[in-house]
């Protein structure tokens, strides 16, 4: 009896082991198109759905730029645009949303490149044969068909260069943004790489404002108290600039504490006009989603073909990477941006 039990036990484990499907050994960044046939069609249908996968879906910058441009593009092309993702900045929830849409095989995915953690699910979509474009920040390890977005290191470098220029190469500076976010960390690094070339510039530290205006204002107020000779603050998320500016205004330090920051929303522009913020480095966000969606459409409809069968030939018929560049704004040109 015992030997029968032992045999059944062994059999159970053999069945269990044979039912195991191990994950692939390489998450690699190589081109996997030889094994993936992209689903292509000739006619455009109103049911042809392009899905934007993002996070913090109600962030004004996303709504006013990324989503507005995407919707406008879809209307022009006569296709359906869906925008999905959590309302909070929640990467696992963005991944969960993405994973649930892949089995529905939409015409294409436009994915906000929020965090390296989304690489695997991007690869899953690519492996499912769905045209996939990542926008905003590039994702290491992801095999998306194309990336379109900003170079955050460059945005940090531009802020650093301008800060050095307006402070004549000396003074205490800090950076503020969301700590831990890949793109912002790259921005901080770009800023620091410039600052460290100037011995008279003193870097105080990195501060986490969690993309919250009130928190950015509070941190700035505390910094002004702790360092009365604070010379400059550089912001790296959309809410850093307005928060820093609020505290600088309240402390009557306009002009004494220089501010550089990212984004060019109406409130940022107004603060530049008032002379509170000295310099903005904006992104061309409308291009991310408008051009990104067009690339998805072109892939699906084989608008441009380089061979008889690009997928089989291992050719991606759209640009692999597009860096859209930055928009630099200061008092000299701000009026051109105010609507």
């Amino acid at each position, binding site marked *: 009896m015992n030997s029968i039990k032992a045999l059944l036990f062994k059999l159970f484990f053999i069945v269990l082991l044979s039912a195991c499907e191990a*994950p692939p050994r390489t998450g690699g960044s190589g081109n996997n198109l030889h094994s993936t046939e992209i689903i292509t069609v000739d006619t455009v249908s109103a049911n042809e759905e392009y899905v934007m996968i993002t996070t913090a879906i109600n962030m004004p910058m996303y709504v006013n730029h990324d989503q507005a441009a995407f919707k406008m593009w879809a209307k022009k092309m006569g296709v359906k645009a869906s*925008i999905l993702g959590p309302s909070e900045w929640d990467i696992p929830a963005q991944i969960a949303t993405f*994973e649930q849409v892949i089995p529905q095989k939409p015409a294409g995915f436009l994915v906000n490149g929020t*965090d*390296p953690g989304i*690489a695997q699910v991007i690869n899953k979509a690519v492996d499912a044969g769905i045209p996939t474009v990542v926008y905003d920040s590039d994702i290491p390890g992801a095999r998306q068909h194309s990336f379109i977005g900003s170079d955050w290191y460059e945005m940090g470098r531009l802020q650093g260069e301008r800060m050095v220029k307006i402070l004549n190469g000396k003074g205490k500076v800090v950076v503020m943004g969301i700590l831990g976010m890949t793109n912002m*960390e790259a921005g901080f690094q770009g800023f620091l790489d410039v600052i460290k070339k100037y011995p008279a510039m003193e870097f105080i530290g990195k501060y986490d404002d969690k993309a919250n205006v009130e928190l950015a204002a509070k941190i700035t107020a505390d910094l002004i108290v702790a360092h009365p000779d604070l010379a400059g603050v550089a912001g790296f998320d959309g809410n850093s600039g307005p928060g820093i500016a609020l505290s600088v205004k309240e402390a009557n330090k306009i002009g004494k504490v220089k501010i550089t920051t990212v984004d060019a929303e109406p409130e940022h522009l107004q603060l530049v006009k008032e002379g509170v913020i000295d310099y903005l480095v904006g992104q061309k966000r409308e291009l991310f989603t408008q051009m990104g969606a067009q690339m998805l459409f072109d892939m699906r409809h084989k608008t441009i073909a380089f061979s008889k069968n690009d997928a089989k030939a291992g050719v991606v018929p759209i640009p692999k990477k597009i860096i859209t560049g930055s928009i630099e704004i200061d008092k000299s040109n701000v009026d051109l941006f105010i609507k």
Partner: protein
Amino acid sequence: MIKDRVVTLSATILLLCIVMSFLFPSQFPTVDNFSQIMLNLSIDTIVAVGMMLLMISGVFDLSVGSIVAFSGGLAGYLMYYHDVNFLVAIVAALSGSLLIGFINGFLITKIGINPMIQTLAMMGVVRGLSLMLSGAGIQNFPYEYNYIGQVKILSLQSPIWYMFAIVLIFSYLFKNIAFFRRYYFIGSNEKAAHLSGIEVEKMKLWGFVIVGLLAGIAGILLSSRLGAALSTSGKGLELRVITAVILGGASLAGGQGKIVGAFLGAAFMGIVGNILILTRVSGYWQEIILGIILILAVGIDQLIQKKK
């Protein structure tokens, strides 16, 4: 029959699935979709089992989401920056999670800090630690580590199996082991439980240790599934889990609830979330709808209780 939340919730889930299968026949009732739903609710359910235990005893823990991020972050940090063997890294991460649970339990039961204040404070402390450990995110884990959360058994990804195992084990423990059944007495009447000889403080302390361990396991599974340790992991998980547990039959007053209810509550929320994605409901509405569902579920429950 109607008064049993497990039965009503199961029936609601079944009805929801039938309706959705008719409305979206090619999208909803598919193996791919269901395995995806299960995968996405597996992490929440594992933590919800621990939360159910705590809520049966009349307390809750707001630091669980941060522990999920901490656990994956610590394992990732040790493996990536210090070349520590993946098993050692897992043991360290789980020990760390246990320790956080122990500190919560100790300060609440021995010093007398209010559980909400203590776990709220711990939520911030542990989130900060996770941020320090994970930074901009850690990737490139050893294959063996990723295997834990990515291997598929009978076409279902491993976190689903871990979830079922944990639900089954804790259901068994609550049904058959006196130690676990005592949590109901504590939740129903703490003073009476104390007078009857139950070591209430010790039991509560163990409750926090267990929830810490389960959150740690969830963190390991999430990071190995994603192949990345993210400082944002588990953000908002505490409220999702408490919602699931209340939907599943727990009461903020304690003394009520079943482990399977935690699973059903999480499953209900997972299915509703999936439906909202299938129907392309905007993210603006998703939280509103889930909030309304919670109010309805608890409100209807209160009405039934009053009628009784």
